[in-house]
């Protein structure tokens, strides 16, 4: 890690490093984002992290946008931009290089094998994300029940998730949690 203490360079190196280990996408990286932002760097509280996740789900765009919120809380608009670029830029370049290289070496069988090996890992990481966020959000039995109900409804129906999020917001607003 860089010895430079400037918040923007701290943000950049932190997120660039996390992104290189983010197998299975942005949601699978949430436990590590939480560990760094809440436990190691103390950029935000557990509750603020859960709020950032909620906001990122409410807002359109890739799930990775939670890093813009973490960056914003550290260093404002510049922090949001730097965090997003650091989380997305290096790995996008890597993907570009690998795709060029793979298209020159057609018929490689190993991508399928690598994928098969990584799928259980990324499910484990996403389950850990749900667990960690759940501990921050589900502070009482009513909140926990709402989480379970949302999980069941989302699993059994094809309802647009936005409706469920909105319903949760209304229940919370009405003071039922």
């Amino acid at each position, binding site marked *: 890690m860089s010895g430079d203490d400037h918040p923007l360079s701290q943000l950049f190196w932190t997120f660039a490093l996390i992104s290189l280990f983010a197998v299975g996408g942005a949601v699978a990286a949430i436990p590590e984002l939480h560990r760094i932002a809440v436990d190691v760097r103390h950029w935000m509280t557990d509750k603020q992290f859960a709020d950032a996740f909620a906001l990122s789900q409410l807002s*359109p765009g890739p799930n990775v946008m939670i890093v813009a919120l973490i960056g914003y809380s550290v260093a404002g608009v510049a922090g949001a931009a730097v965090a997003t670029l650091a989380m997305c830029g*290096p790995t996008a370049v890597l993907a*570009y290089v690998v795709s060029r290289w793979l298209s020159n070496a057609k018929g490689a069988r190993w991508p399928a094998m690598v994928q098969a090996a990584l799928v*259980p890992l990324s499910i484990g990481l996403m389950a850990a994300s*749900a667990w960690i966020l759940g501990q921050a959000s589900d502070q009482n039995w009513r909140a926990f029940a709402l989480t379970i109900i949302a999980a069941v409804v989302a699993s059994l129906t094809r309802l647009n998730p936005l409706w469920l*999020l909105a319903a949760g917001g209304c229940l919370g607003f009405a003071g*039922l949690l």
Partner: protein
Amino acid sequence: MPPEIAPAVHPAADIAKIPPSLRTLFFAFAKMSLSGFGGVLVFARRAIVDEHRWMTAEEFNETFALCHFLPGPNIVNLAMVFGARLRGIAGGIAAFTGLLGPPMLLITALGALYGHYGQAEALRRALEGVSCVAVGLLASVVLRMISPLLKKSDVVGLVVMAAVFVAIGLARLPLQEVLLVAVPLSLAITYAKARWAR
């Protein structure tokens, strides 16, 4: 497929021949991104394969598989690889900024509002409800992903998954250390299983 857009010609002729301009790429990705609540993939597939016909469904799946096993946000990788395939590096950058720029401005605005009003009682309560549901949605995605492993009764996969969950979710170990053990191990097991099956 409606007949008026699928004339009786070779399927390859179905795919647009002229590569889109950088502007078109930027706006196409901005549009997918801004319509994507809870993930952009579905909208990306719809736009790239069905609407613009820039790729066949098969090509899209292959590209996505590549982007899925590489590190980093999958959909961002996809935008870069896809844009570069059509228009070189400039195309990759156009798709990348289209995908990330507009939602980043939007969420930064939300972050600013949260910074100002986050302590207001009503907003705090509403956000609490939203985050409970968001966790539930995430849990349902996880369940949906586990079900193929259960159906195949893939014991090894389930054990790897559970071990990662315990290490990261319960023990809160650093991601790097866990992956440095888990990735080679899972690769070795998958390779051994593939050889054994043959």
